[in-house]
């Protein structure tokens, strides 16, 4: 039974299944343009708010506020965007379609992965729009091609990791409404108690220690360094370690929860 050829077969089947389910999630983007629009417009409004309303009052040291802001706002957008995975997973689970998928001879991992990757595509679209708007409101980075590739890589790694956490929340939540609140309570403190909008040096000690050491700050500082040349320190390596570790832990948990989940 457990010959290597049947293993190869199973692996290629799982990849095909995952691809089919990714295609399903990507179709959802085109069928539900309102969601894409909302997910893109909201962070743009945040950016305009911080750029023009609060920004003038925030001292970032050397750089202009808009240059400082873009890394933080991109990460915040990616974090909230990743939460759509918890919604799409929770919707599947509530609607009974999960029972259909589970009665199929496919890997349970594929269903969750389909959502995660589909949402990654959606968030990438939003991120591109966001960066274009950033340039329009005065963002002037000095990143080279290699820097940009690293920025894109970090953003994808971060979104992918957050999407898996969101998938776990979607599988644990009792209702679709509960999912939205759970996500908010996780993402709000992680993105605001960070270096996203203000330098951490302005924060009270306890908060500052949290903000400086939590993973979201590392990825923001790493991207900021690549964009405008702020000190890199260990931010890049810490980001890669944190979010790779999150993926390694979250993927099997999500797959296991999905297998165990039975509607009703």
């Amino acid at each position, binding site marked *: 039974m457990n010959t290597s050829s049947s293993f190869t077969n199973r692996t290629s089947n799982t990849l095909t299944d995952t691809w089919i389910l990714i295609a399903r999630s990507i*179709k959802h983007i085109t069928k539900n343009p309102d969601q894409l629009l909302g997910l893109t417009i909201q962070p743009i409004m945040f950016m305009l708010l911080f750029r023009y309303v609060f920004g003038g009052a925030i001292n970032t040291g050397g750089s202009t506020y808009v240059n400082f802001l873009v890394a933080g706002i991109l990460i915040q957008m990616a974090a909230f965007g990743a939460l759509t995975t918890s919604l799409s997973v929770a919707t599947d689970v509530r609607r009974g379609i999960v029972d259909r998928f589970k*009665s199929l001879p*496919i890997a349970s991992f594929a269903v969750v992965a389909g959502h995660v990757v589909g949402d990654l595509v959606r968030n990438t679209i939003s991120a591109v729009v966001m960066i274009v708007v950033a340039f329009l409101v005065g963002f002037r980075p000095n990143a080279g091609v290699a820097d940009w590739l690293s920025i894109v890589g970090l953003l994808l790694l971060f979104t992918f990791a957050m999407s898996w956490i969101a998938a776990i929340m979607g599988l644990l939540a009792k209702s679709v409404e509960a999912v939205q609140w759970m996500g908010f309570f996780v993402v709000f403190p992680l993105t605001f108690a960070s270096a996203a909008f203000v330098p951490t040096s302005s924060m009270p000690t306890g908060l500052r220690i949290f903000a400086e050491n939590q993973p979201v700050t590392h990825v923001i500082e790493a991207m900021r360094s690549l964009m405008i040349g702020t000190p890199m320190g260990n931010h890049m390596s810490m980001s890669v370690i944190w979010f790779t570790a999150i993926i390694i832990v979250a993927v099997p948990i999500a797959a296991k929860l999905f297998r165990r989940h039975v509607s009703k």
Partner: protein
Amino acid sequence: MADSVIELRNIKKSYDKVAVLEGINLTVERGTMLALLGPNGAGKTTTVKILSTLLKPDSGEVLVNGTNAVQDPNTVRHMIGLTGQYAAVDELLSGRENLIMMGRLYHLGKEKSVARAQELLEQFELTDAADRAVKTYSGGMRRRLDLAASLVATPPIIFLDEPTTGLDPRSRLTMWKIIQDLMKNGATILLTTQYLEEADQLADYIAVLDKGTIIAHGTADELKSKVGKERTEIVIEKNANFDNAKKLFDDAGIKINEEERSISIPTDGSVRAVKSILDKLTNANIEIDSMSVHKPTLDDVFLELTHHS
């Protein structure tokens, strides 16, 4: 030995220490349909979920086409089609996209999936709505699509969990016809329902599930005969005639309702038996005001059985 395709042996299942199934035994033979009949909360859906590998039982044995569903769920998943209580289809996709996706997940290949989707859309009368998002479908259309989705890979064993609950009478009839066609094509079907009429109309065998226990099983006729025979009821308004008639049928296990002035006489259900009652009345010169024949329904069976438990 009988060729049983679905077999449950002493299945027990509890959720949070609340026993849902308390030792279920069921057998469905190849090419037949068993209706699992029971009220809400009897354990019907849990039984289907265990059969379709979505749930593991706490104890007992589940055999689907000879394969142990607990030890080897993937083999079982290749042989079954499941239609749950809630239409398990993707609301944002169109009917056609749903069916093609299912075909591809069953590894039919792209071309075959497309062809099979078209075939099913025609069979289930969904061609007009094929390319519309499912969220615009009516309840009946959704259920038909859901059933179609479970048949993409032409599974020989089909589980239908309350396939007509919440449907209007017309959609229910359409669904019945579709299910009967599946039977004709040789599928083995386990259907759950809370509609006694549905079990009577569709199934070869009926098992009555109540509070996690099978309280009766057999053919519809066998179950009905448990409750009693057919009865012929006559109503006589005139006092003298009513009393005479009572004497006339005195020995036959009759039931008399003085208020409604009716006499209910057990018969074997044949026309001859009914005619002999009428002949007796005519010979005795008793005029009756009305007559009716009552067949025991599964409702009677159900009320009788659940009453005792």
